[in-house]
């Protein structure tokens, strides 16, 4: 899932400064699961902003609503009337949600309440770790299901590097060396021979190096929406 963290209240107050009416929009998917921007967080943030503005003598009108997913138009349509009525929409969705709101409501000023951090999972309650870099050319089949792009600090294809020490990364001893993990797993699975294949340079064009990415599935497109 997409992992995000809420911005500081100080930064958020700056982003919504001057707005008399404000709508906090939570998202019911990834950021709910990582406790950053779901219904509960939207409600707490709206209350916090109401209290903070009242203490500053401004009394902003702050309401909140949470949609199932901010990243699909059909979930945003029901917000149209509420959005029309406010000066600023504060999105507690990931960066995709913020942009979806701005794109769907082009006359509305939309600001982010979260910092979108990475694609990952909760390894235990209260701890999230990165697992995928969305590089567009998955090599997990060659690395025992452990991603060296996301989990090796240098994104090495043929690791480990000389900075791997006792199974940990040189940049931070709290970070496990991805290539040590890969080696250990392949060894356990009796498939160490996989490592004998030297990986050739990766096609980074499928990642961000090729510019903003787009996937088109003709089999799924609607004839009425084709350009």
């Amino acid at each position, binding site marked *: 899932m997409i992992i995000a963290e809420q911005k*500081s*209240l*100080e930064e958020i107050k700056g982003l919504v400064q001057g707005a008399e009416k404000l709508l906090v929009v939570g998202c019911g998917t990834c950021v709910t699961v990582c406790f950053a921007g779901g219904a509960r967080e939207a409600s*707490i943030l709206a209350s*916090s902003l109401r*209290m*903070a503005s*009242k*203490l*500053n*003598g401004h009394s902003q009108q702050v309401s909140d609503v949470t949609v199932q997913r901010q990243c699909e138009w059909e979930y945003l349509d029901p917000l149209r009337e509420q959005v029309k009525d406010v000066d600023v929409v504060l999105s507690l969705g990931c960066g995709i949600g913020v942009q979806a709101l701005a794109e769907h409501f082009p006359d509305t000023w939309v600001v982010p309440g979260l910092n979108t951090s990475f694609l990952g999972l909760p390894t235990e309650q209260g701890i999230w770790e990165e697992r995928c870099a969305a590089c567009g050319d998955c090599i997990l089949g060659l690395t025992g299901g452990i991603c060296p792009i996301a989990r090796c600090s240098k994104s090495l294809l043929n690791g480990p590097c000389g900075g791997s020490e006792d199974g940990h990364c040189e940049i931070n001893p709290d970070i496990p060396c991805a290539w040590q993990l890969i080696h250990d797993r392949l060894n356990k699975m009796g498939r160490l021979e996989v490592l004998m294949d030297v990986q050739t340079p990766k096609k980074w064009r499928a990642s961000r190096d090729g510019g903003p990415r787009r996937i088109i599935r003709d089999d799924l497109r609607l004839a009425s929406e084709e350009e």
Partner: protein
Amino acid sequence: MPGDCHYLEGNVHARRRVERIKRLLEDIGLQSERVKMVNLSSAMATGFVSEAQIMTAQIQQLGPNPLRAS
């Protein structure tokens, strides 16, 4: 006592959440001293009275909630 709760480690979790609330109150502009957590067992009546008196005095010193006053 910490970690010795009817709900096992519940009071340890509660303390972390109270700490978070205290930081949030400061961010909002309210004094974090308006919330406090102390650990007392059901057999510590005297301790409870003492803590309640300390909290009452502290709140009186802070004055009314400015959100209600304005």
